[in-house]
């Protein structure tokens, strides 16, 4: 008998949604309005702390940090979305095929993924960048490839679980082609766990982008990136410690937001499924 009937407030989901939403809004506003031009230098106003004119202060060239953080959001969302798309696409393809077909295909694909996973993620990304060169798109591709193994494992376990379920067996007795069984019958049922994995990957992708850019290998000039802003701020930390605050907080909130969003979605789906 169904007994849990009171929907609980999902704090994770609400908080995650607010954080990501807030940053997304800042980024969207940057397309129509920025307090200052992101590359406008002002020799008279270098190394400033937070003030009414510059809410997050200014950097070593006197550029407004708030404007640069807002603009940097574009890079973060772009790299995150691209990387997660790549990760989800290839991860689902590899993991789904391995899980559903099993046998030697499964062995081959998953051993390949294990091999990829054996490298620390950042090293994988560094290798890819060494091969294709730095830049926003290349960074996104590198991070996307990096996230394929983890997502492929989630997809594999989902497909493995559903390939023996009766409605899939029924589709086989009808003669539904394999690819159609995989995409029409199984994928929609595995999608929710993939969406959660995607959300968690998003946070990780932004962190990696920041790290790569911090190392100077990620997003290149003149696009502002939170990671590179941190690196630059480090150079004059003693003269203006405030400059690390803006990009630092932005990265933290973004990663935290997506993490909460992922966990919150999982809780919400679990609750919904227990109602079915």
């Amino acid at each position, binding site marked *: *008998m169904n*007994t*849990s*009937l*009171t929907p609980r407030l999902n704090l994770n989901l609400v908080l995650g949604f607010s954080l990501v939403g807030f940053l997304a809004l800042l980024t969207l506003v940057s397309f129509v309005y920025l307090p200052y031009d992101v590359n406008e230098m002002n020799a008279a106003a270098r190394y400033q702390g937070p003030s009414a004119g510059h809410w997050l202060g200014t950097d070593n060239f006197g550029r407004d940090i708030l404007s640069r953080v807002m603009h940097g959001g574009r890079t973060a969302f772009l790299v995150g979305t691209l990387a997660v798309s790549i990760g989800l696409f290839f991860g689902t393809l590899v993991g789904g095929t391995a899980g559903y077909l099993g046998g030697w295909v499964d062995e081959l694909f998953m051993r390949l993924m294990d091999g990829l996973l054996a490298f620390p993620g950042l090293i994988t990304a560094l290798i890819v960048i060494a091969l294709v060169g730095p830049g926003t798109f290349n960074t996104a591709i590198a991070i996307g490839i990096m996230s394929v193994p983890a997502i492929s494992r989630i997809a594999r376990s989902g497909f493995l679980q559903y390939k023996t379920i009766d409605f899939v067996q029924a589709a086989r007795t009808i003669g539904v082609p394999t690819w159609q069984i995989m995409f029409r019958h199984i994928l929609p049922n595995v999608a929710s766990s993939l969406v959660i994995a995607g959300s968690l990957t998003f946070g990780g992708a932004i962190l990696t982008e920041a790290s790569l850019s911090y190392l100077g290998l990620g997003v290149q000039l003149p696009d502002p990136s939170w990671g590179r802003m941190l690196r630059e701020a480090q150079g004059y930390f003693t003269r203006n410690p405030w400059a690390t605050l803006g990009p630092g907080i932005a990265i933290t909130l973004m990663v935290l937001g997506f993490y909460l969003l992922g966990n919150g979605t999982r809780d919400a789906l679990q609750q919904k499924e227990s109602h079915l």
Partner: protein
Amino acid sequence: MKGKSLKITDLALWFNADRPNPIKAIDGLNLEIPAGTTLALVGESGCGKTMTGLSIIGLTPAAGEVVRGSITLGDHEVTAMSERELSKIRGTEVAMIFQEPMTSLNPLMTIGKQLTEAMEVQLGFSRSRANDRARDLLHLVGFANPRQTLGDYPHRLSGGMRQRVMIALALACEPSLLIADEPTTALDVTIQAQVLAVLRHAVTVTGISMLLITHDLAVVSNIADRVAVMYSGSVVENATTTQLFADPSHPYTRGLLAAIPTLDREIVPLRSIPGGVPDPAHLPVGCRFAPRCSQAFEPCGVSFPRATNVGTDHRVHCFLYPQESK
């Protein structure tokens, strides 16, 4: 060990009782088990039979609330007890076995340990005394070599053996009432026969009272003294087992019996009961079976029929029989 009587009067267990359209899992249930006898509570899924068992032992889900009625076990009023008091009578006064024996046994503890632990905690038995009793119990439930079984882990046992261990475990602390909720439903027919024989033997030997909850009318004939047929949260017919099968009186009971294929009857098309059970959040006014009943007439849609005696010790809630004034 001696059984105690159980009396349930006008019990109502609702979910979301404080909201519009509460889910009435049990509503207006009356039931009596004389000390030392076995009553079978029979009904289809969703009729509230499992919730009835859980209310007696005080284990209903948190969202459920007893909104009226009483459950009296011996001289305990169960509905008035606190969680502390309830946990004291669980095992020692009332014990329950469930359909799925695997989830009720701890996979990391030997059978012996699980049996003796309860006795040491609840009854204050010494280790050796508990061990002796555990051996006796396993013997009672049909284990040929109890000494060996005591040292086994649950995964070494088959489904039927586990269910017999569960019976031993339930009897360990000398309860006065055993609630068996679909104890053989998950088992194969030859194993079901073994377990039912064991259950019957154990109850007879110990003299305790039993509430056997099942969906299968055929199962009850060999084991129960009385049968209560439940539909949509209340009992519609209550009789001795012999009476019930000889003269089923409620249209629902008759419908159920006509719907069961048997090994003995001539093969004729089965008569099914049209439709399905009502939604417990929107119970029909009057007799709850009326919407599916081929004999329903005017009064059925007005009020719930009172119990009518249709034979010695045979009560039916149905307007087809003259309503006695209370």
